[in-house]
């Protein structure tokens, strides 16, 4: 198992006719159209080939962990929305899961189902917009992105109707949900779920067999199984490298063991696999949604959560399969209403570990494609 840091190929510049040659150092970012936020890659180029790459983080750092350590458990719930601002529902869930491990709370059935519904809708939102951005990085002038955003809007409408906000939902609570979904919401969700496959068909026709996309993504940014495991890559990116590890199956948190779904995985681990695994995962999410919307029971949505959340001294680590990978919350309670230590294990931050390894030797145009296929959100990377 190799885990050593990849080194740049031993690069020698050959001076020609007495002319001095130099590598071109380009600082891609922080204001670059394709770095998905304020992220910087210091790239050294020989012509168009990437010789060295250094990711630079921290432009969006706000020390979320320190903030959370200075406020009550409940108060940092809305701040988790802002970590990965595409997937506020799953962020909420990860935090709620960790906090619920601290104190024993029984979560009502309906709340569990609604959590699954929201998480899978979030997964759809994330994957669909990621695929759109990915196509945009490949240079498809916004068309796939806008198709994706149209579908995303429909799901965001659902979130808005349920929680009052489109992106910063702040919907989950320790022991359940903040409020029940309004009347007719489930029918509307069913409608969205029923129509989504038609969109996916069209989308696959547009992208998946396009010769340009195939040649742009296949064989680009290959990530081996061994490196993926060692570098702690999680989520669709890990499964694209051929490791079957999905926390929904492994941990079966919530009530995921009740649903019948499959986990797609790739073999090569290049950008095409990462792209396709996400496309296929959307179909599986739809399967889960169909089952969940069918079985959802009536009942209360809030468990017997204490009004003042004051857990006994303990250490817990709660993790869920977020759309981008394993999102973990590590909380140390010390018996006060504030967490002593609050740590977020951000999937996209850890997934960036291998950015350099994947980009070395590729073309400069590939770096943005590889970065796009990693699926980062800077709110989460920098916290």
């Amino acid at each position, binding site marked *: *198992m190799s*885990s*050593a*840091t990849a080194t740049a190929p031993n690069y020698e510049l050959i001076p020609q006719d007495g002319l001095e040659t130099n590598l071109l150092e380009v600082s891609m970012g922080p204001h670059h159209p394709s770095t998905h936020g304020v992220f910087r890659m210091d790239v050294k180029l020989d012509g168009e080939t990437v010789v060295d790459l250094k990711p630079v*983080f*921290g432009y969006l*750092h706000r*020390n979320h*962990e*320190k903030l959370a350590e200075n406020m009550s458990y409940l108060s940092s719930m809305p701040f988790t929305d802002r970590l990965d601002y595409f997937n506020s529902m799953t962020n909420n869930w990860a935090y709620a899961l960790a906090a619920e491990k601290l104190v024993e709370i029984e979560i009502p059935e309906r709340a569990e189902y609604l959590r699954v519904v929201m998480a899978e809708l979030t997964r759809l939102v994330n994957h669909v917009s990621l695929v759109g951005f990915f196509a945009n990085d490949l240079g498809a002038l916004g068309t796939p992105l806008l198709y994706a955003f149209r579908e995303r809007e429909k799901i965001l409408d659902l979130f808005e109707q349920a929680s009052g906000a489109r992106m910063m939902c702040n919907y989950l609570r320790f022991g359940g949900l903040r409020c029940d979904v309004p009347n007719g919401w489930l029918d509307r969700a069913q409608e969205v779920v029923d129509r989504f496959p038609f969109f996916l068909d069209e989308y696959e026709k547009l992208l998946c067999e396009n010769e340009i996309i195939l040649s742009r993504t296949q064989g680009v940014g290959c990530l081996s199984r061994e*490196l993926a*495991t*060692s*570098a*702690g*890559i*999680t989520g669709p990116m890990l499964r694209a490298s051929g*490791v079957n*590890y999905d926390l929904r199956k*492994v*941990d*079966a948190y919530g009530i995921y063991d009740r649903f019948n779904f499959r986990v797609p995985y790739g073999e090569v681990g290049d950008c095409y696999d990462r792209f396709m695994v996400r496309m296929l995962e959307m179909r599986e999410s739809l399967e889960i949604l169909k089952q969940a919307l069918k079985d959802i029971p009536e009942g209360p949505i809030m468990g017997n959560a204490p009004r003042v959340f004051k857990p006994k*001294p*303990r*250490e817990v*680590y709660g*993790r869920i399969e977020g759309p981008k990978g*394993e999102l*973990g919350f*590590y909380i*140390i309670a010390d018996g006060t209403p504030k967490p*002593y*230590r609050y*740590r977020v*294990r951000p999937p996209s*931050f*850890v997934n*960036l*570990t*291998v950015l350099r390894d994947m980009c070395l030797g590729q073309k400069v145009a590939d770096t943005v494609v590889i970065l796009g296929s990693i699926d980062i959100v800077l709110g989460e990377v*920098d*916290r």
Partner: protein
Amino acid sequence: MSGISHELVQQQFPEAEWDEVAGALIVAPEKAQEVAKWLLDHDTLTLDYCSNVTGVDYLERETKGKIINDAGEEETINKIEPGRIDVVYHLYSMRNKTGPLVLKQQTERDKAEVASLTPVWRSCELQEREIYDLFGVKFKGHPDLRRILMWDEFEGYPMRKDYIEPFDYEWEPTPHDEILEKHKKGKVFV
């Protein structure tokens, strides 16, 4: 998902301590890399996936402890627990789908230094850099130990419990009392 028994590890490394409250195995920094390699290569454990790496800062504090004094009576005294920084590793096995095993390295606060586990698990690379950045823990054997989230010129370690932030040099100009007054006067530089 099943947890991992710490006793197996303690058989191999008897000096490793088991902390019941935290549910963590405490290893000495000198031994850490050896333990990590053993955990990774072990036939049944195969902890090939290091999920989460983080630091925890404990300030020096007074605790009340009970001791048996010379006279054989129980006595409550004030103990001073020295401050320390823990570096916590959450280990899982992707192959066996088991975990977690929590590994901790402890170090004093003033000259914080532990062994880097990046040579064993690549996933520690950025997370250990983050701990170095925010807690000021040096990692021996880390290939690229630089600040990561804060800028290079930044002084201090913001995640430490006794960190005092400097005066708000980059505040959001919010309309409140003193700052509002300052803003009305013109641009303020601190």
